[in-house]
């Protein structure tokens, strides 16, 4: 039930952000739309932890900023490799996934894919298989900074729920 309410709030916010027309008629239609979508989502059984507002804490913002920094770094690295094609040394690697919640695992997998140089190939319960473009990208991932950051994010979500 908590997730249903938080999904409703999220949808109301989305509607207000999209709409830009603040008239009673549109508010009325918006309320109807949100109720319809929440009802369908409950029927579809797609309401879940992903919509929990606790996940959207200040730590998430901090994580996005950190990820942005990583993005710039790895993008510059891969862009250099585009022009030095002979330095490309692809390899496969497997790193452990220390997180429990599905959302954290997915955040990890997607963050790995988002930073160029590494792509998540397979994500299982406790392991992540990745393809790295060269030795440096692979070492970055193996060092586990990203996994630790996400553990830090996860603790926040657990602490407040």
């Amino acid at each position, binding site marked *: 039930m908590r997730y249903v309410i938080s999904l409703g709030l999220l949808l109301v916010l989305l509607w207000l952000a999209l709409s830009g027309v603040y008239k009673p008629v549109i508010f009325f239609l918006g309320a109807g739309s949100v109720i319809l979508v929440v009802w369908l989502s409950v029927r579809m059984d797609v309401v879940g932890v992903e919509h929990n507002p606790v996940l959207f804490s200040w730590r998430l913002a901090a994580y996005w900023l950190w990820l942005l920094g990583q993005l710039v770094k790895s*993008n510059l690295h891969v862009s250099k490799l*585009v022009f030095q094609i002979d330095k490309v040394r*692809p390899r*496969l690697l497997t790193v452990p996934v220390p997180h429990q919640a599905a959302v954290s695992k997915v955040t990890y997998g997607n963050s790995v894919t*988002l930073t160029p140089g590494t*792509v998540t190939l397979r994500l299982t319960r406790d392991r992540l298989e990745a393809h790295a*473009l060269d030795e440096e990208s692979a070492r970055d991932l193996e060092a586990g900074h990203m996994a630790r950051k996400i553990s830090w994010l996860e603790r926040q979500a657990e602490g407040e729920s």
Partner: protein
Amino acid sequence: MMAIFIDILSWVLLITGGAFGVIGGIGLLRFPDFYTRLHASGITDTLCAVLIVFGLMLQSGLSLLTLKMVLILLFLLFTTPTATHALARAAVLDGLEPKLADQPQASPSEEEPPSKP
């Protein structure tokens, strides 16, 4: 003064964003196999999109348009890695072998045959 500064910053962001897009496109052509090309598509999908969206946001200031640009950026940052991962996973399960460094490297012009009709 401030307005000019913001304008120049936004131009720089836009131009570098476009440049990264083109670099990613070149990488898409030059990299030797499917898995390495995924990394090239990663460049165009992340930094290029982030830079261009931030550049455009600076142009419009605080308005509903900016909010929608943020939404676009969020949607892109959620969906593109998911699509890329789904592709990579599908290719792995399909048995498409990545070219690895310890194997003798074929020249980029010599392309592998399609794995499946």
